[in-house]
């Protein structure tokens, strides 16, 4: 694989954090969380890798979303 830029690695780190958060969810709904994570990242797959502003914005948005959804009170997710 080609060397990844710092920003690309940040995206992968966020993705990994999301998947780790999925593991803390109840077994029955874990698949829903994983599907949601994949879909959210998949939405912006086509984004140009030079579009730093957008990527940085989405990273911040994703991190905030993760902080909300990883709370123990969130037990299931639609999507």
């Amino acid at each position: 694989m080609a060397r990844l830029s710092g920003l690309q690695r940040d995206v992968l780190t966020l993705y990994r954090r999301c998947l780790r958060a999925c593991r803390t969810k109840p077994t029955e709904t874990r698949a829903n969380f994983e599907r949601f994570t994949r879909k959210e990242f998949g939405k912006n797959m086509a984004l140009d890798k030079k579009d730093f502003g957008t990527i940085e914005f989405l990273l911040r948005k994703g991190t905030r979303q993760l902080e909300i959804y990883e709370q123990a009170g969130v037990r299931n997710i639609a999507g």
Partner: protein
Amino acid sequence: MFRAAILRAARTASQSAVRAQRPAFQRITQTPFLQSRISTPATSISAIRCYASSSGLGQDEVTGRIMDLLKNFDKVQDQSKLSASSHFTNDLGLDSLDTVEVVMAIEEEFSIEIPDKEADAIHSVSQAVDYIMAQPDAH
């Protein structure tokens, strides 16, 4: 009859206990074959067990488990290219996000946690096998 057997067993046990408690200098006077019989009490035979020794994960087993895991991964496009040396991106057609997922699945399979830095360096089945083999607590 059963009680008699127990009594007999108890008597022989107490006799042997007494014999074992005899001071060492008395043994010298005994005949050699007697001495050899009592000088090795059963408790000294217990073998040494090392609980910290490695779980003995073989290279073939690790490779097999990782291949099974990839076989069940729905995003692998070309199953025929799946081998012990396949590259996640070049051979299996996975993107960087899928690679992260594969590495996370490997983490779960072997009950370990791979730090981000090492995880970013795993791009092929053989690299994953090498990493697992280097982990003493993988199982």
